[in-house]
């Protein structure tokens, strides 16, 4: 039962990254190529109705995590105290910049909030990757089941690393470029004119950079946490996930060449989802690995909540997902043909 929940949470986080990833990525494209005021409006209107709903996946995953693996929640959240607080502040800045920026048509006001949006979104793409890197590398968990992580120590991996070291930073840079590409592909699909043309060029560059960084990060992972690949190799059921990632990236590049942004965007999403689910499959049954000793790992077996709750949980998780997906389908369908018009309030 705990295993089921492990993968459901991995799935929810994957959906979060694939969905919120593109609107975060739009922020990164804005940082790289700010464009004119009108172009930024156009880009923002493409994510205006959906970014908030996308972010809900993170909250929902957090809620499910408290319920199913309370000790992981307690340990990880208090252990990454400062990094998580920075995430929260960035999420606040980002949410507010979209909401506040849209309410007033004043050049300086908009410039300020657009810049806030671009910087906070870009920082989040980096931090998401750093977080993933930390999960793979492991954290200084001791027998108390808790740990305390500083932001940085000496930038080396090892028994007492900081949240930022060369490895997690590398994963962060990969995530940044990969989500930037995701955002650029989304804009290529959902916008028109100059924004579309520019996003299309940017998508090419970012996809290329992301693929290079992915190979480097893969080699680095083999060095830092080889067990991930050993386990993946022993688990044929997880191979389709990795193959899916490979298929996604090839499909995306092919479609991008043909100028079909919608298909390329979907392909890139499959790539991201394949990578994340493969990582989860390689980590299983560990949720939080200790850098000191594997006996102190928090695993599916030792961190799960009571079985009554876990069983009951499935009974509402399924209808909730059906309902939630229904809302998303309705939302995206209602806005499907909605392209150029300015969706801000004025």
């Amino acid at each position, binding site marked *: 039962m705990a295993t089921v929940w492990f993968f459901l949470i991995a799935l929810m986080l994957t959906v979060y990254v694939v969905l919120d990833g593109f609107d975060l990525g739009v922020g990164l494209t804005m940082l790289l190529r700010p464009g004119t005021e009108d172009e930024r409006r156009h880009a923002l209107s493409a994510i*205006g*109705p959906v970014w*908030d*709903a996308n*972010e*809900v996946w993170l*909250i*929902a*995953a*957090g*809620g*499910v995590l*408290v*319920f*199913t693996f*309370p*000790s992981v*929640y*307690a340990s990880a*959240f*208090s252990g*990454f*105290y*400062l990094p*998580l*607080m920075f995430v*929260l*502040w960035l*999420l*606040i800045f980002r*949410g*507010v910049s*979209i*909401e*506040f920026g849209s*309410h*007033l048509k004043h050049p300086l006001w908009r410039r300020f909030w657009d810049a806030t949006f671009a910087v906070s979104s870009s920082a989040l793409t980096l931090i998401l990757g750093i977080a993933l890197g930390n999960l793979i590398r492991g954290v200084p968990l001791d027998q*108390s089941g*808790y740990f*305390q992580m500083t932001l940085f120590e000496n930038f080396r991996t090892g028994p007492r690393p900081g949240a930022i070291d060369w490895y997690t930073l590398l994963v962060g840079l990969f995530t940044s470029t990969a989500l930037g590409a995701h955002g650029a592909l989304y804009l290529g699909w959902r916008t028109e004119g100059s924004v579309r043309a520019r996003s299309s060029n940017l998508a090419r560059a970012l996809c290329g950079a992301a693929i290079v960084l992915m190979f480097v990060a893969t080699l680095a992972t083999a060095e830092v946490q080889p067990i991930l690949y050993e386990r993946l190799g022993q688990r044929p059921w997880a191979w389709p996930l990795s193959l899916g990632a490979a298929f996604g990236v090839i499909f995306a590049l092919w479609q991008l060449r043909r100028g079909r942004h919608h298909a390329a965007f979907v392909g890139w999403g499959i790539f991201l989802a394949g990578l994340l689910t493969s990582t989860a499959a390689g980590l299983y049954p560990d949720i939080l690995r200790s850098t000191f000793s594997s006996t102190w790992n928090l695993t599916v077996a030792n961190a799960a*909540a*009571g079985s*009554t*709750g876990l069983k*009951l*949980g499935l009974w*509402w*998780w399924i209808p*909730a*997902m059906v*309902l*939630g997906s229904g*809302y998303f389908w*309705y*939302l995206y369908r*209602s*806005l499907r043909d*909605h392209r150029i018009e300015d*969706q801000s*309030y004025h």
Partner: protein
Amino acid sequence: MNALTWDRFQFGFTITYHYLFPQLTMGLALVILVLKILALKTGEDRYNAAARFWGRIFGLNFGLGVVTGIPLEFQFGTNWARFSHYAGGVIGLTLALEGMFAFFAESAFLGLFLFGEKRLTPRSHFLVALMMFLGSWLSGYFIVATNAFMQHPEGYQVAASGALELADWRNYLLNSWAFWQYAHTMTAAVITGAFVVCAVAAYWTLMGVHREQARISLRVGVWAGLIASLLQLFPTGDQQGKLVAQHQRPTLAAMEGKFASSHPAELVVIGQPDVAHRRLENPIAVPAVLSFLSYGSFGATVYGLNDFPESEWPDNVELLYYAYHIMVGLGTLFILVMGVSAVLLWRGRLEASRSMLWVLMLAFPFPYIANTAGWMTAELGRQPWLVYGLQRTAQGSSPKVSSGDVAFTTLGYLGLYLLLGIGFLFLVAREIGRGPTPAEAA
């Protein structure tokens, strides 16, 4: 200051600030729903225009509610790790349910409500408003049910590991404490919504602008406000008080500033508690009423704080006492203000009564104060427990987080939220100045 004190200050501050937004969101969701029903029934666009205007305020307010709400869920883990570890297997149910059932609905349908009016049929747009309302009110229920467990744990069992786990989800979700607490909280939210709607409408009327829209908002606001203010006192407030009297006796004593037990017990309207000397100074009291309100009989014994060891007292008796009295005092005033407004409205004289319009325009901050004081009563009253009778607040914090880290983030929240507040007030003031817009310009 040690880490625990910073933790408590941080959570208290961030949740108080956060709740300034959802109370209006939930109140306005109902107002918007009523306006959409009126629009659908009459087919008149003026109701849609009103709904559109309040939808814009709702959107801003909702946005701030979301961004200030996310840190709270995270803080259970970051600052209160031992609490999450201990109770997460139980309270996680409602936190997860809120995310999955309520937030999905709210966020998906808010986007559609704000951006989709031109693309949807009037009927679909009404349904979108209905989903928004259901989402926000459901969200409220899950949070109140979580709090109700902390006030009065039901439906749990202690696992072999010593942590709590879910034993009976029906008992947990339908906690006997949760029903009245929810009803009391939601009517309070409607009061905030109603007073804000009335304040804006009164401002427009006094300025002589947007007369038609002001009339609609006044009518909806005053009636919603009157009904909610009455329900706030009876039965919801009354029942909530009886639950405290039954299950949290030291809390009741502290709320009332009562040190010695007595039967019959008098109800103190005002006075200043001197905790060190265990007495209430300058009391103005009504005999026997507290016995009746708490236990339904004029002769019932009401226990005082002297009957309990100090280790079981709420740790801030003074603040708890004042928070409770401010809540009750303001609640009484709300009935008065809305009662007079309703009489004037009924006779068709409210729009001409400038003095009453001034009162309505200036009264809107007070429901916010009353809501805050009400939650302070609940939360200070729960002390020294985090989960009543099971886990003390001092036992719930994160073991390895330093006070320097919590101080750092607390100061960060203070600064950040100050800026957010300024930006929010500026934009809301601007929206109110612009007023409602007709369909083409929206």
